[in-house]
């Protein structure tokens, strides 16, 4: 799953630690989500959407799986 967390965070001049505190997760988790290594749960995705005042699909985009 692709996401725009890194871009949105940079636009606000937030560090990964700032975003981690705002989302109530560890900095490692924010880093893993930004790098696409870990897909967040639906509640965490909603939390991010509320934080950035955007729709979930504007932040997270599904990537079609390769056959």
């Amino acid at each position: 799953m692709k996401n725009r967390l890194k871009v949105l965070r940079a636009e606000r001049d937030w560090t990964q630690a700032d975003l981690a505190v705002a989302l109530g997760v560890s900095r490692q988790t924010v880093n893993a989500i930004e790098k696409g290594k870990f897909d967040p749960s639906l509640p965490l995705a909603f939390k991010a959407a509320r934080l950035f005042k955007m729709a979930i699909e504007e932040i997270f985009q599904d990537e079609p799986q390769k056959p």
Partner: protein
Amino acid sequence: MNRSIIGSDACSPESAKSSAQLLVWVFIWTATMVLADKGMAYQWWTEKWITVAAIVVNTALGVGMITFFVSYLRKMDELQRKIQLEALAFAMGCGLVGSFTYSLLVTAGFIVETEIGDIILLMTVTYMAAIIVGRVRYR
């Protein structure tokens, strides 16, 4: 929301404190187990009630350790919990497969001595290795 570990790094003071507390629990439980085991084996005491007390204290500390570990897991965020889950599954699988292989080797006569401590050691090592691999993988 519990914030004792979340909102921080895996190496943050809060996380390190919780990990240290868990280590203290494990150490105390292991120490009382060794004390009870060696005490009975080498007859450091002869009174039955001391043996019973040693077993009861060790079991109670074991329950305390499990309770602490569960609350430790609940304080983690979803990625940290995923790493723990994968590590626990790997350690349990290795322990299960390892113990059956061990049993077969004993039946086949390749191994004479069977020690439950070897399986515990295997599970501990595989758990710790899996935690390190998980942290590196999601770094």
